[in-house]
Protein backbone atom coordinates (compact mmCIF):
# COMPACT_ATOMS: atom_id res chain seq x y z
CA UNK A 1 0.00 0.00 0.00
CA UNK A 2 1.13 3.49 -0.63
CA UNK A 3 1.71 5.44 2.53
CA UNK A 4 -1.54 7.34 3.07
CA UNK A 5 -1.20 11.09 2.90
CA UNK A 6 -2.13 13.18 5.91
CA UNK A 7 -5.56 14.25 4.57
CA UNK A 8 -7.30 10.86 4.63
CA UNK A 9 -5.76 10.02 8.00
CA UNK A 10 -7.32 13.10 9.52
CA UNK A 11 -10.65 12.44 7.81
CA UNK A 12 -10.57 8.86 9.00
CA UNK A 13 -9.79 9.94 12.53
CA UNK A 14 -12.72 12.36 12.40
CA UNK A 15 -15.08 9.62 11.21
CA UNK A 16 -13.98 7.25 13.98
CA UNK A 17 -14.34 10.01 16.59
CA UNK A 18 -17.82 10.95 15.41
CA UNK A 19 -18.77 7.31 15.43
CA UNK A 20 -17.51 6.77 18.97
CA UNK A 21 -19.28 9.95 20.07
CA UNK A 22 -22.51 8.83 18.39
CA UNK A 23 -22.39 5.50 20.19
CA UNK A 24 -21.06 6.55 23.56
CA UNK A 25 -22.82 9.89 24.12
CA UNK A 26 -26.15 8.40 25.24
CA UNK A 27 -24.37 6.17 27.71
CA UNK A 28 -22.26 8.93 29.20
CA UNK A 29 -25.34 11.14 29.41
CA UNK A 30 -27.22 8.42 31.24
CA UNK A 31 -24.40 8.13 33.78
CA UNK A 32 -24.48 11.90 34.32
CA UNK A 33 -28.27 12.00 34.51
CA UNK A 34 -28.34 9.32 37.19
CA UNK A 35 -26.11 11.55 39.32
CA UNK A 36 -27.66 14.92 38.42
CA UNK A 37 -29.76 17.06 40.73
CA UNK A 38 -31.23 19.22 37.98
CA UNK A 39 -30.26 19.24 34.30
CA UNK A 40 -32.80 21.13 32.19
CA UNK A 41 -31.43 24.69 32.36
CA UNK A 42 -27.74 24.18 31.45
CA UNK A 43 -25.42 22.11 29.30
CA UNK A 44 -23.94 20.27 32.26
CA UNK A 45 -25.91 19.19 35.36
CA UNK A 46 -26.22 21.80 38.10
CA UNK A 47 -25.17 19.43 40.87
CA UNK A 48 -24.49 15.81 41.66
CA UNK A 49 -26.07 13.42 44.18
CA UNK A 50 -26.32 9.68 44.96
CA UNK A 51 -29.99 10.11 45.76
CA UNK A 52 -31.31 8.35 42.65
CA UNK A 53 -29.20 5.29 43.48
CA UNK A 54 -30.46 5.27 47.07
CA UNK A 55 -34.03 5.42 45.82
CA UNK A 56 -33.33 2.68 43.30
CA UNK A 57 -31.79 0.34 45.90
CA UNK A 58 -34.73 0.95 48.23
CA UNK A 59 -37.39 0.15 45.64
CA UNK A 60 -39.56 -2.72 46.89
CA UNK A 61 -39.04 -4.56 43.60
CA UNK A 62 -35.31 -3.87 43.19
CA UNK A 63 -34.00 -7.00 44.88
CA UNK A 64 -36.69 -9.32 43.58
CA UNK A 65 -36.40 -8.24 39.93
CA UNK A 66 -32.61 -8.36 40.04
CA UNK A 67 -32.82 -11.83 41.56
CA UNK A 68 -35.41 -12.93 38.97
CA UNK A 69 -33.27 -11.63 36.10
CA UNK A 70 -30.18 -13.39 37.44
CA UNK A 71 -32.07 -16.66 37.93
CA UNK A 72 -33.50 -16.40 34.42
CA UNK A 73 -30.12 -15.62 32.83
CA UNK A 74 -28.20 -18.31 34.68
CA UNK A 75 -30.85 -20.95 34.02
CA UNK A 76 -30.87 -20.07 30.31
CA UNK A 77 -27.09 -20.42 30.20
CA UNK A 78 -27.18 -23.85 31.80
CA UNK A 79 -30.01 -25.19 29.65
CA UNK A 80 -28.29 -23.83 26.56
CA UNK A 81 -25.03 -25.49 27.56
CA UNK A 82 -26.71 -28.85 28.19
CA UNK A 83 -28.50 -28.77 24.84
CA UNK A 84 -25.78 -27.35 22.60
CA UNK A 85 -22.38 -28.70 23.69
CA UNK A 86 -23.11 -32.44 23.38
CA UNK A 87 -25.07 -31.86 20.20
CA UNK A 88 -22.19 -30.00 18.53
CA UNK A 89 -19.53 -32.45 19.74
CA UNK A 90 -21.40 -35.56 18.65
CA UNK A 91 -22.33 -33.99 15.32
CA UNK A 92 -18.68 -33.15 14.68
CA UNK A 93 -17.31 -36.56 15.64
CA UNK A 94 -19.91 -39.07 14.50
CA UNK A 95 -22.56 -37.36 12.40
CA UNK A 96 -20.76 -34.86 10.27
CA UNK A 97 -23.37 -34.98 7.52
CA UNK A 98 -25.98 -33.57 9.92
CA UNK A 99 -23.93 -30.42 10.35
CA UNK A 100 -25.57 -28.41 7.51
CA UNK A 101 -29.00 -29.30 8.89
CA UNK A 102 -27.97 -28.05 12.29
CA UNK A 103 -26.53 -24.85 10.79
CA UNK A 104 -29.86 -24.28 9.04
CA UNK A 105 -31.97 -24.97 12.12
CA UNK A 106 -29.91 -22.43 14.05
CA UNK A 107 -30.95 -19.61 11.75
CA UNK A 108 -34.63 -20.04 12.60
CA UNK A 109 -34.50 -18.08 15.88
CA UNK A 110 -33.15 -15.10 13.94
CA UNK A 111 -36.08 -15.32 11.56
CA UNK A 112 -38.75 -15.33 14.28
CA UNK A 113 -39.57 -11.88 15.64
CA UNK A 114 -39.31 -11.93 19.44
CA UNK A 115 -42.92 -10.80 19.73
CA UNK A 116 -44.12 -13.70 17.61
CA UNK A 117 -42.00 -16.15 19.57
CA UNK A 118 -43.38 -14.88 22.87
CA UNK A 119 -47.00 -14.84 21.76
CA UNK A 120 -46.87 -18.29 20.19
CA UNK A 121 -45.43 -19.76 23.38
CA UNK A 122 -48.16 -18.07 25.43
CA UNK A 123 -50.77 -19.40 23.04
CA UNK A 124 -49.55 -23.01 22.92
CA UNK A 125 -48.60 -23.68 26.51
CA UNK A 126 -51.92 -22.75 28.11
CA UNK A 127 -51.98 -25.60 30.63
CA UNK A 128 -50.89 -25.46 34.28
CA UNK A 129 -48.22 -25.24 35.63
CA UNK A 130 -46.42 -24.21 32.45
CA UNK A 131 -48.58 -21.31 31.29
CA UNK A 132 -47.00 -17.90 31.94
CA UNK A 133 -44.46 -19.54 34.25
CA UNK A 134 -40.74 -18.72 34.49
CA UNK A 135 -40.18 -22.21 33.10
CA UNK A 136 -41.93 -21.23 29.87
CA UNK A 137 -39.93 -18.01 29.79
CA UNK A 138 -36.68 -19.99 30.07
CA UNK A 139 -37.77 -22.22 27.18
CA UNK A 140 -38.34 -19.11 25.08
CA UNK A 141 -35.12 -17.33 26.05
CA UNK A 142 -33.12 -20.49 25.31
CA UNK A 143 -34.58 -20.72 21.81
CA UNK A 144 -34.14 -16.99 21.30
CA UNK A 145 -30.44 -17.04 22.25
CA UNK A 146 -29.59 -20.44 20.81
CA UNK A 147 -27.82 -19.08 17.72
CA UNK A 148 -25.31 -17.24 19.93
CA UNK A 149 -24.47 -20.34 21.92
CA UNK A 150 -24.40 -22.55 18.86
CA UNK A 151 -22.15 -20.23 16.84
CA UNK A 152 -19.67 -19.76 19.67
CA UNK A 153 -19.38 -23.45 20.42
CA UNK A 154 -19.28 -24.59 16.80
CA UNK A 155 -16.68 -21.95 15.89
CA UNK A 156 -14.58 -23.20 18.77
CA UNK A 157 -15.03 -26.78 17.66
CA UNK A 158 -14.08 -25.87 14.09
CA UNK A 159 -11.04 -23.92 15.23
CA UNK A 160 -9.36 -26.76 17.12
CA UNK A 161 -10.11 -29.74 14.85
CA UNK A 162 -11.86 -31.76 17.47
CA UNK A 163 -11.81 -35.03 15.52
CA UNK A 164 -8.04 -35.20 15.07
CA UNK A 165 -7.56 -34.33 18.76
CA UNK A 166 -9.99 -37.11 19.63
CA UNK A 167 -7.99 -39.53 17.50
CA UNK A 168 -4.69 -38.38 18.97
CA UNK A 169 -6.08 -38.93 22.45
CA UNK A 170 -7.36 -42.39 21.49
CA UNK A 171 -4.04 -43.41 19.96
CA UNK A 172 -2.37 -42.47 23.26
CA UNK A 173 -4.76 -44.73 25.13
CA UNK A 174 -7.36 -42.16 26.19
CA UNK A 175 -10.91 -43.44 26.70
CA UNK A 176 -14.05 -41.34 26.04
CA UNK A 177 -14.12 -39.79 29.53
CA UNK A 178 -10.47 -38.75 29.54
CA UNK A 179 -10.71 -37.51 25.95
CA UNK A 180 -13.70 -35.35 26.80
CA UNK A 181 -12.55 -33.94 30.11
CA UNK A 182 -8.80 -33.58 29.50
CA UNK A 183 -8.59 -32.85 25.78
CA UNK A 184 -11.87 -31.67 24.26
CA UNK A 185 -13.49 -29.52 26.94
CA UNK A 186 -10.36 -27.51 27.85
CA UNK A 187 -9.91 -26.65 24.17
CA UNK A 188 -13.46 -25.53 23.40
CA UNK A 189 -13.85 -23.92 26.83
CA UNK A 190 -13.41 -20.33 25.56
CA UNK A 191 -16.18 -20.90 23.01
CA UNK A 192 -18.51 -22.38 25.60
CA UNK A 193 -17.81 -19.52 27.96
CA UNK A 194 -18.21 -16.76 25.44
CA UNK A 195 -21.45 -18.40 24.25
CA UNK A 196 -22.76 -18.56 27.81
CA UNK A 197 -21.82 -14.95 28.42
CA UNK A 198 -23.60 -13.81 25.26
CA UNK A 199 -26.66 -15.77 26.35
CA UNK A 200 -26.41 -14.27 29.82
CA UNK A 201 -26.15 -10.70 28.53
CA UNK A 202 -28.95 -11.10 26.01
CA UNK A 203 -31.35 -12.75 28.41
CA UNK A 204 -30.52 -10.30 31.18
CA UNK A 205 -31.33 -7.42 28.85
CA UNK A 206 -34.50 -8.94 27.39
CA UNK A 207 -37.68 -6.98 27.93
CA UNK A 208 -40.11 -8.26 25.28
CA UNK A 209 -40.11 -11.97 26.08
CA UNK A 210 -40.47 -11.48 29.82
CA UNK A 211 -43.12 -8.78 29.46
CA UNK A 212 -45.25 -10.86 27.10
CA UNK A 213 -44.75 -14.33 28.58
CA UNK A 214 -44.69 -13.95 32.35
CA UNK A 215 -45.64 -10.28 32.72
CA UNK A 216 -46.36 -9.38 36.35
CA UNK A 217 -46.09 -13.04 37.42
CA UNK A 218 -42.31 -12.91 37.19
CA UNK A 219 -40.98 -9.39 37.01
CA UNK A 220 -37.50 -8.91 35.57
CA UNK A 221 -35.05 -6.05 35.96
CA UNK A 222 -35.70 -4.49 32.53
CA UNK A 223 -39.43 -4.46 33.36
CA UNK A 224 -38.74 -2.52 36.56
CA UNK A 225 -36.56 -0.14 34.55
CA UNK A 226 -39.28 0.60 32.01
CA UNK A 227 -41.83 1.03 34.80
CA UNK A 228 -39.61 3.58 36.56
CA UNK A 229 -39.24 5.75 33.45
CA UNK A 230 -42.87 6.71 33.93
CA UNK A 231 -42.27 7.58 37.59
CA UNK A 232 -38.82 9.07 38.09
CA UNK A 233 -36.33 9.71 35.27
CA UNK A 234 -33.31 9.91 37.57
CA UNK A 235 -34.11 6.60 39.21
CA UNK A 236 -34.60 5.02 35.78
CA UNK A 237 -31.22 6.42 34.77
CA UNK A 238 -29.66 4.95 37.89
CA UNK A 239 -31.21 1.57 37.09
CA UNK A 240 -29.91 1.88 33.50
CA UNK A 241 -26.43 2.54 34.84
CA UNK A 242 -26.64 -0.50 37.09
CA UNK A 243 -27.88 -2.67 34.23
CA UNK A 244 -25.34 -1.30 31.78
CA UNK A 245 -22.47 -1.66 34.22
CA UNK A 246 -23.42 -5.27 34.77
CA UNK A 247 -23.64 -5.90 31.03
CA UNK A 248 -20.37 -4.07 30.46
CA UNK A 249 -18.65 -6.11 33.12
CA UNK A 250 -19.85 -9.25 31.43
CA UNK A 251 -18.69 -8.15 28.02
CA UNK A 252 -15.29 -7.24 29.45
CA UNK A 253 -14.96 -10.80 30.67
CA UNK A 254 -16.07 -11.90 27.21
CA UNK A 255 -13.46 -9.71 25.53
CA UNK A 256 -10.80 -10.97 27.87
CA UNK A 257 -11.62 -14.52 26.95
CA UNK A 258 -11.74 -13.86 23.23
CA UNK A 259 -8.40 -12.04 23.41
CA UNK A 260 -6.98 -14.98 25.30
CA UNK A 261 -8.25 -17.26 22.55
CA UNK A 262 -6.79 -15.10 19.79
CA UNK A 263 -3.43 -14.99 21.55
CA UNK A 264 -3.08 -18.69 20.98
CA UNK A 265 -3.10 -17.87 17.26
CA UNK A 266 -0.17 -15.49 17.44
CA UNK A 267 2.62 -15.80 14.91
CA UNK A 268 4.63 -18.93 15.35
CA UNK A 269 8.39 -18.87 15.33
CA UNK A 270 9.70 -19.69 11.89
CA UNK A 271 11.28 -23.01 11.05
CA UNK A 272 14.16 -21.15 9.37
CA UNK A 273 15.56 -20.17 12.74
CA UNK A 274 15.42 -23.70 13.94
CA UNK A 275 17.29 -25.09 10.92
CA UNK A 276 19.88 -22.46 11.66
CA UNK A 277 20.13 -21.18 8.12
Amino acid at each position, binding site marked *: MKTPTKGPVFLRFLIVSLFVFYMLLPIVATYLFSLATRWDRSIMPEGYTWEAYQTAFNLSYFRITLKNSLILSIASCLVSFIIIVPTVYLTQINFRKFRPLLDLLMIIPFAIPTVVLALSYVRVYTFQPITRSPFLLIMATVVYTMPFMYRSVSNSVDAVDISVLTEASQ*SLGGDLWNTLTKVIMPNIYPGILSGMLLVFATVFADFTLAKLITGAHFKTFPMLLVEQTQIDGNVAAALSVISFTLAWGISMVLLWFSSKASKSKKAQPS*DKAYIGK
Partner: protein
Amino acid sequence: MAYLTLADISKNFNKNPAVEHFNLDVEKGKLVSFLGPSGCGKTTTLRMIAGFETPDSGVIELDGEDISNIPPNKRNIGMVFQSYALFPNMTVLDNICFGLRMHKMLKNQIVPKAREVLDLVRLSDTANRYPNQLSGGQQQRIALARALAIEPRVLLLDEPLSALDAEVRVVLRGEIRRIQTNLKITTIYVTHDQEEALSISDRVVVMNKAHIEQVGTPQEIYREPKTKFVATFIGTANEFHGSVCGKDSVKSAEFLIKTNNASLFADGDEVFALVRPEKIDVYSYKPENIDGNVLEGLVDTITFRGAETRLGIDIGEKVITADVPGKDVFSYGQRVWVAFDSNACQVLK
Protein backbone atom coordinates in the same frame (compact mmCIF):
# COMPACT_ATOMS: atom_id res chain seq x y z
CA MET B 1 8.03 -64.30 10.64
CA ALA B 2 6.23 -61.06 9.96
CA TYR B 3 5.53 -58.81 12.92
CA LEU B 4 2.63 -56.93 11.36
CA THR B 5 0.47 -58.67 8.79
CA LEU B 6 -2.33 -57.20 6.72
CA ALA B 7 -4.17 -60.05 5.06
CA ASP B 8 -6.54 -59.33 2.19
CA ILE B 9 -7.82 -56.05 3.63
CA SER B 10 -10.63 -54.29 1.76
CA LYS B 11 -12.56 -51.16 2.63
CA ASN B 12 -15.29 -49.23 0.80
CA PHE B 13 -16.61 -45.74 1.41
CA ASN B 14 -20.14 -45.26 0.07
CA LYS B 15 -19.61 -48.23 -2.24
CA ASN B 16 -16.39 -46.75 -3.65
CA PRO B 17 -13.42 -48.99 -2.99
CA ALA B 18 -10.81 -47.20 -0.85
CA VAL B 19 -8.56 -50.23 -0.37
CA GLU B 20 -8.83 -53.51 -2.26
CA HIS B 21 -7.24 -56.83 -1.35
CA PHE B 22 -4.30 -55.30 0.46
CA ASN B 23 -1.69 -57.86 1.52
CA LEU B 24 1.48 -56.93 3.34
CA ASP B 25 3.96 -58.38 5.79
CA VAL B 26 6.09 -55.96 7.78
CA GLU B 27 9.17 -57.22 9.58
CA LYS B 28 9.91 -56.08 13.10
CA GLY B 29 12.03 -52.94 13.33
CA LYS B 30 11.67 -51.92 9.69
CA LEU B 31 10.37 -48.70 8.20
CA VAL B 32 7.84 -49.29 5.43
CA SER B 33 6.44 -46.41 3.37
CA PHE B 34 3.04 -46.29 1.74
CA LEU B 35 3.59 -44.11 -1.32
CA GLY B 36 0.98 -42.96 -3.81
CA PRO B 37 -1.10 -40.04 -5.10
CA SER B 38 -3.90 -38.63 -2.97
CA GLY B 39 -6.92 -40.89 -2.82
CA CYS B 40 -4.90 -44.07 -3.47
CA GLY B 41 -5.95 -45.59 -0.13
CA LYS B 42 -2.64 -45.25 1.74
CA THR B 43 -4.07 -43.17 4.58
CA THR B 44 -7.16 -45.37 4.86
CA THR B 45 -4.91 -48.42 5.26
CA LEU B 46 -2.91 -46.64 7.95
CA ARG B 47 -6.09 -45.65 9.76
CA MET B 48 -7.25 -49.27 9.73
CA ILE B 49 -4.00 -50.29 11.43
CA ALA B 50 -4.58 -47.53 13.99
CA GLY B 51 -8.18 -48.65 14.51
CA PHE B 52 -9.86 -45.43 13.36
CA GLU B 53 -11.42 -47.31 10.46
CA THR B 54 -12.72 -50.87 10.44
CA PRO B 55 -11.89 -53.05 7.41
CA ASP B 56 -14.90 -54.43 5.53
CA SER B 57 -12.98 -57.68 5.17
CA GLY B 58 -9.54 -59.07 5.95
CA VAL B 59 -7.47 -59.47 9.08
CA ILE B 60 -4.83 -57.29 10.72
CA GLU B 61 -2.41 -59.23 12.87
CA LEU B 62 0.18 -57.67 15.15
CA ASP B 63 2.74 -59.94 16.76
CA GLY B 64 0.50 -62.93 16.11
CA GLU B 65 -2.61 -61.32 17.61
CA ASP B 66 -5.68 -60.35 15.53
CA ILE B 67 -6.21 -56.68 16.44
CA SER B 68 -9.06 -56.00 13.99
CA ASN B 69 -11.65 -55.70 16.75
CA ILE B 70 -9.61 -53.94 19.42
CA PRO B 71 -10.63 -50.29 19.92
CA PRO B 72 -7.91 -47.75 19.01
CA ASN B 73 -7.14 -46.78 22.60
CA LYS B 74 -6.32 -50.39 23.51
CA ARG B 75 -4.00 -51.15 20.55
CA ASN B 76 -0.91 -49.39 21.88
CA ILE B 77 -0.04 -48.06 18.44
CA GLY B 78 1.62 -44.64 18.21
CA MET B 79 0.36 -42.18 15.66
CA VAL B 80 1.81 -38.95 14.25
CA PHE B 81 -0.61 -36.77 12.29
CA GLN B 82 -0.01 -34.38 9.41
CA SER B 83 -1.51 -31.56 11.46
CA TYR B 84 0.64 -32.46 14.51
CA ALA B 85 -2.52 -32.82 16.68
CA LEU B 86 -0.76 -31.64 19.81
CA PHE B 87 -3.15 -30.73 22.61
CA PRO B 88 -3.13 -26.91 22.59
CA ASN B 89 -4.19 -26.68 26.22
CA MET B 90 -1.20 -28.61 27.52
CA THR B 91 2.50 -27.81 27.70
CA VAL B 92 4.94 -29.90 25.69
CA LEU B 93 5.74 -31.98 28.77
CA ASP B 94 2.05 -32.53 29.60
CA ASN B 95 1.38 -33.55 26.01
CA ILE B 96 4.00 -36.27 26.33
CA CYS B 97 2.88 -37.27 29.83
CA PHE B 98 -0.74 -37.66 28.68
CA GLY B 99 -0.14 -41.03 26.99
CA LEU B 100 1.91 -42.26 29.93
CA ARG B 101 -0.87 -41.33 32.36
CA MET B 102 -3.44 -43.09 30.17
CA HIS B 103 -1.24 -46.16 30.27
CA LYS B 104 -1.22 -45.97 34.08
CA MET B 105 2.53 -45.68 34.36
CA LEU B 106 3.76 -45.23 37.93
CA LYS B 107 3.53 -41.54 38.89
CA ASN B 108 7.22 -41.09 39.68
CA GLN B 109 8.31 -42.61 36.37
CA ILE B 110 6.15 -40.43 34.11
CA VAL B 111 8.14 -37.21 34.02
CA PRO B 112 11.58 -38.88 33.72
CA LYS B 113 10.28 -40.97 30.81
CA ALA B 114 8.78 -37.88 29.14
CA ARG B 115 12.07 -36.01 29.50
CA GLU B 116 13.90 -38.94 28.02
CA VAL B 117 11.91 -38.91 24.76
CA LEU B 118 12.12 -35.12 24.69
CA ASP B 119 15.90 -35.50 24.72
CA LEU B 120 15.56 -37.99 21.90
CA VAL B 121 14.03 -35.33 19.61
CA ARG B 122 16.53 -32.74 20.91
CA LEU B 123 13.93 -30.35 22.30
CA SER B 124 14.50 -30.65 26.05
CA ASP B 125 14.39 -26.88 26.44
CA THR B 126 10.79 -26.62 25.23
CA ALA B 127 9.27 -28.75 28.02
CA ASN B 128 7.27 -25.93 29.57
CA ARG B 129 6.18 -24.19 26.38
CA TYR B 130 2.82 -24.50 24.69
CA PRO B 131 2.50 -25.99 21.19
CA ASN B 132 1.57 -22.61 19.65
CA GLN B 133 4.91 -21.21 20.82
CA LEU B 134 6.79 -23.69 18.65
CA SER B 135 7.51 -23.76 14.93
CA GLY B 136 5.85 -26.38 12.76
CA GLY B 137 8.96 -28.53 12.66
CA GLN B 138 9.33 -28.38 16.42
CA GLN B 139 5.67 -29.27 16.93
CA GLN B 140 6.01 -32.31 14.73
CA ARG B 141 9.09 -33.46 16.66
CA ILE B 142 7.08 -33.13 19.89
CA ALA B 143 4.27 -35.13 18.33
CA LEU B 144 6.83 -37.80 17.45
CA ALA B 145 8.17 -37.79 21.02
CA ARG B 146 4.63 -38.08 22.37
CA ALA B 147 3.92 -41.09 20.18
CA LEU B 148 7.25 -42.74 21.10
CA ALA B 149 6.81 -42.18 24.86
CA ILE B 150 4.20 -44.91 25.20
CA GLU B 151 6.62 -47.37 23.58
CA PRO B 152 4.09 -48.34 20.95
CA ARG B 153 4.18 -51.69 19.24
CA VAL B 154 4.00 -49.94 15.86
CA LEU B 155 4.59 -46.29 14.98
CA LEU B 156 2.31 -44.82 12.30
CA LEU B 157 3.18 -41.56 10.54
CA ASP B 158 0.50 -40.01 8.33
CA GLU B 159 2.20 -37.56 5.93
CA PRO B 160 4.08 -36.14 8.90
CA LEU B 161 6.09 -33.62 6.87
CA SER B 162 3.51 -32.39 4.34
CA ALA B 163 2.69 -29.24 6.28
CA LEU B 164 6.34 -28.16 6.54
CA ASP B 165 8.74 -26.17 4.36
CA ALA B 166 10.98 -28.00 1.92
CA GLU B 167 14.15 -27.47 3.94
CA VAL B 168 12.59 -28.50 7.25
CA ARG B 169 11.21 -31.59 5.57
CA VAL B 170 14.66 -32.76 4.58
CA VAL B 171 16.13 -32.15 8.04
CA LEU B 172 13.24 -33.77 9.87
CA ARG B 173 13.03 -36.87 7.71
CA GLY B 174 16.67 -37.52 8.46
CA GLU B 175 15.90 -37.21 12.13
CA ILE B 176 12.88 -39.52 11.97
CA ARG B 177 15.01 -42.12 10.24
CA ARG B 178 17.82 -41.76 12.78
CA ILE B 179 15.45 -42.23 15.74
CA GLN B 180 13.59 -45.08 14.08
CA THR B 181 16.85 -46.91 13.35
CA ASN B 182 18.18 -46.39 16.87
CA LEU B 183 14.99 -47.52 18.60
CA LYS B 184 14.41 -50.30 16.04
CA ILE B 185 10.71 -49.46 16.09
CA THR B 186 8.44 -50.94 13.45
CA THR B 187 7.15 -47.99 11.47
CA ILE B 188 4.62 -47.30 8.72
CA TYR B 189 5.20 -44.01 6.94
CA VAL B 190 2.52 -42.59 4.64
CA THR B 191 3.60 -40.05 2.04
CA HIS B 192 2.79 -38.81 -1.45
CA ASP B 193 6.35 -37.54 -1.92
CA GLN B 194 8.46 -40.06 -3.84
CA GLU B 195 11.76 -38.45 -2.84
CA GLU B 196 10.75 -38.79 0.82
CA ALA B 197 9.74 -42.43 0.41
CA LEU B 198 12.97 -43.32 -1.44
CA SER B 199 15.22 -41.65 1.06
CA ILE B 200 13.69 -42.84 4.32
CA SER B 201 12.41 -46.38 3.79
CA ASP B 202 13.57 -49.93 4.15
CA ARG B 203 10.74 -50.93 1.87
CA VAL B 204 8.25 -48.95 -0.18
CA VAL B 205 4.66 -49.95 -0.94
CA VAL B 206 3.57 -48.05 -4.05
CA MET B 207 -0.22 -47.69 -4.16
CA ASN B 208 -2.56 -46.44 -6.85
CA LYS B 209 -6.36 -46.49 -7.06
CA ALA B 210 -6.91 -48.58 -3.91
CA HIS B 211 -4.46 -51.35 -4.77
CA ILE B 212 -0.75 -52.10 -4.42
CA GLU B 213 1.32 -51.52 -7.55
CA GLN B 214 4.66 -52.74 -6.23
CA VAL B 215 6.45 -53.54 -2.98
CA GLY B 216 10.21 -53.37 -2.80
CA THR B 217 13.31 -51.62 -1.54
CA PRO B 218 13.77 -48.02 -2.73
CA GLN B 219 16.43 -49.21 -5.16
CA GLU B 220 14.15 -51.89 -6.63
CA ILE B 221 11.29 -49.45 -6.96
CA TYR B 222 13.46 -46.89 -8.73
CA ARG B 223 15.54 -49.20 -10.90
CA GLU B 224 13.15 -52.02 -11.64
CA PRO B 225 9.64 -50.61 -11.67
CA LYS B 226 7.10 -53.35 -12.34
CA THR B 227 4.42 -51.11 -13.84
CA LYS B 228 4.33 -47.96 -15.93
CA PHE B 229 2.62 -46.18 -13.04
CA VAL B 230 5.56 -46.90 -10.72
CA ALA B 231 8.09 -45.89 -13.37
CA THR B 232 6.49 -42.49 -14.01
CA PHE B 233 5.33 -41.72 -10.46
CA ILE B 234 8.80 -42.29 -9.04
CA GLY B 235 11.48 -40.12 -10.56
CA THR B 236 11.42 -38.83 -14.13
CA ALA B 237 11.39 -41.20 -17.07
CA ASN B 238 11.51 -40.77 -20.84
CA GLU B 239 8.85 -42.94 -22.44
CA PHE B 240 8.98 -44.55 -25.87
CA HIS B 241 5.69 -46.13 -26.81
CA GLY B 242 6.01 -48.92 -29.36
CA SER B 243 5.86 -52.64 -29.99
CA VAL B 244 8.33 -55.41 -29.22
CA CYS B 245 10.38 -56.30 -32.26
CA GLY B 246 12.63 -59.31 -31.84
CA LYS B 247 14.20 -60.20 -28.52
CA ASP B 248 16.17 -57.03 -28.07
CA SER B 249 14.34 -54.01 -29.39
CA VAL B 250 11.19 -51.91 -29.26
CA LYS B 251 9.91 -50.23 -32.40
CA SER B 252 8.27 -46.89 -31.82
CA ALA B 253 6.89 -44.49 -34.42
CA GLU B 254 10.26 -43.40 -35.71
CA PHE B 255 12.90 -45.18 -33.75
CA LEU B 256 14.11 -48.64 -33.02
CA ILE B 257 15.14 -48.72 -29.37
CA LYS B 258 17.66 -51.40 -28.43
CA THR B 259 17.10 -52.96 -25.04
CA ASN B 260 18.12 -56.03 -23.06
CA ASN B 261 14.78 -56.25 -21.29
CA ALA B 262 12.33 -57.00 -24.10
CA SER B 263 12.64 -60.77 -23.93
CA LEU B 264 9.87 -61.01 -21.34
CA PHE B 265 7.35 -60.02 -23.97
CA ALA B 266 6.09 -61.60 -27.15
CA ASP B 267 6.92 -60.16 -30.53
CA GLY B 268 4.50 -57.34 -31.38
CA ASP B 269 3.32 -56.66 -27.83
CA GLU B 270 2.57 -52.99 -27.19
CA VAL B 271 5.01 -51.76 -24.59
CA PHE B 272 6.77 -48.72 -23.15
CA ALA B 273 10.51 -48.41 -23.17
CA LEU B 274 11.61 -46.19 -20.29
CA VAL B 275 14.94 -44.43 -19.70
CA ARG B 276 15.92 -42.28 -16.72
CA PRO B 277 17.38 -38.82 -17.53
CA GLU B 278 20.64 -39.56 -15.70
CA LYS B 279 21.22 -42.64 -17.85
CA ILE B 280 21.42 -40.52 -20.97
CA ASP B 281 24.69 -39.08 -22.25
CA VAL B 282 24.64 -36.01 -24.47
CA TYR B 283 27.32 -35.30 -27.07
CA SER B 284 27.90 -32.25 -29.22
CA TYR B 285 29.27 -34.60 -31.93
CA LYS B 286 28.04 -37.89 -33.24
CA PRO B 287 29.58 -40.47 -30.92
CA GLU B 288 31.33 -43.41 -32.55
CA ASN B 289 31.67 -46.99 -31.41
CA ILE B 290 28.72 -46.87 -29.06
CA ASP B 291 26.90 -50.09 -28.48
CA GLY B 292 23.42 -48.85 -27.65
CA ASN B 293 20.98 -46.21 -28.75
CA VAL B 294 22.01 -42.94 -30.38
CA LEU B 295 19.42 -40.33 -31.35
CA GLU B 296 19.94 -36.93 -32.93
CA GLY B 297 18.15 -33.78 -31.76
CA LEU B 298 18.22 -30.09 -30.96
CA VAL B 299 18.56 -28.53 -27.50
CA ASP B 300 15.11 -27.16 -26.67
CA THR B 301 15.36 -26.23 -22.99
CA ILE B 302 18.26 -25.83 -20.58
CA THR B 303 17.57 -25.90 -16.87
CA PHE B 304 20.52 -25.27 -14.61
CA ARG B 305 20.07 -27.16 -11.37
CA GLY B 306 23.42 -26.70 -9.67
CA ALA B 307 25.11 -30.09 -9.59
CA GLU B 308 23.64 -31.04 -12.95
CA THR B 309 21.93 -29.38 -15.88
CA ARG B 310 18.68 -30.77 -17.24
CA LEU B 311 18.35 -30.59 -21.01
CA GLY B 312 15.21 -30.94 -23.04
CA ILE B 313 16.28 -32.34 -26.42
CA ASP B 314 13.82 -32.24 -29.29
CA ILE B 315 14.27 -35.41 -31.33
CA GLY B 316 11.37 -34.63 -33.64
CA GLU B 317 8.75 -37.02 -32.37
CA LYS B 318 9.22 -35.93 -28.77
CA VAL B 319 11.39 -34.13 -26.29
CA ILE B 320 13.91 -36.21 -24.37
CA THR B 321 14.91 -35.20 -20.87
CA ALA B 322 18.58 -35.73 -20.04
CA ASP B 323 20.66 -34.75 -17.02
CA VAL B 324 24.26 -33.78 -17.76
CA PRO B 325 26.98 -32.73 -15.30
CA GLY B 326 26.92 -29.04 -14.46
CA LYS B 327 30.26 -28.40 -16.13
CA ASP B 328 29.06 -29.48 -19.61
CA VAL B 329 27.95 -26.48 -21.63
CA PHE B 330 25.21 -26.55 -24.25
CA SER B 331 23.30 -23.74 -25.90
CA TYR B 332 19.74 -23.32 -27.12
CA GLY B 333 19.14 -24.81 -30.55
CA GLN B 334 22.47 -26.67 -30.59
CA ARG B 335 22.53 -29.93 -32.53
CA VAL B 336 23.32 -32.80 -30.16
CA TRP B 337 23.34 -36.59 -29.99
CA VAL B 338 21.84 -38.46 -27.07
CA ALA B 339 23.07 -41.93 -26.25
CA PHE B 340 21.91 -44.53 -23.77
CA ASP B 341 22.88 -48.10 -23.16
CA SER B 342 20.52 -50.92 -24.04
CA ASN B 343 20.77 -51.98 -20.38
CA ALA B 344 19.48 -48.60 -19.21
CA CYS B 345 16.22 -49.13 -21.01
CA GLN B 346 13.41 -50.69 -19.01
CA VAL B 347 10.52 -52.29 -20.91
CA LEU B 348 7.02 -52.37 -19.39
CA LYS B 349 3.48 -53.04 -20.55
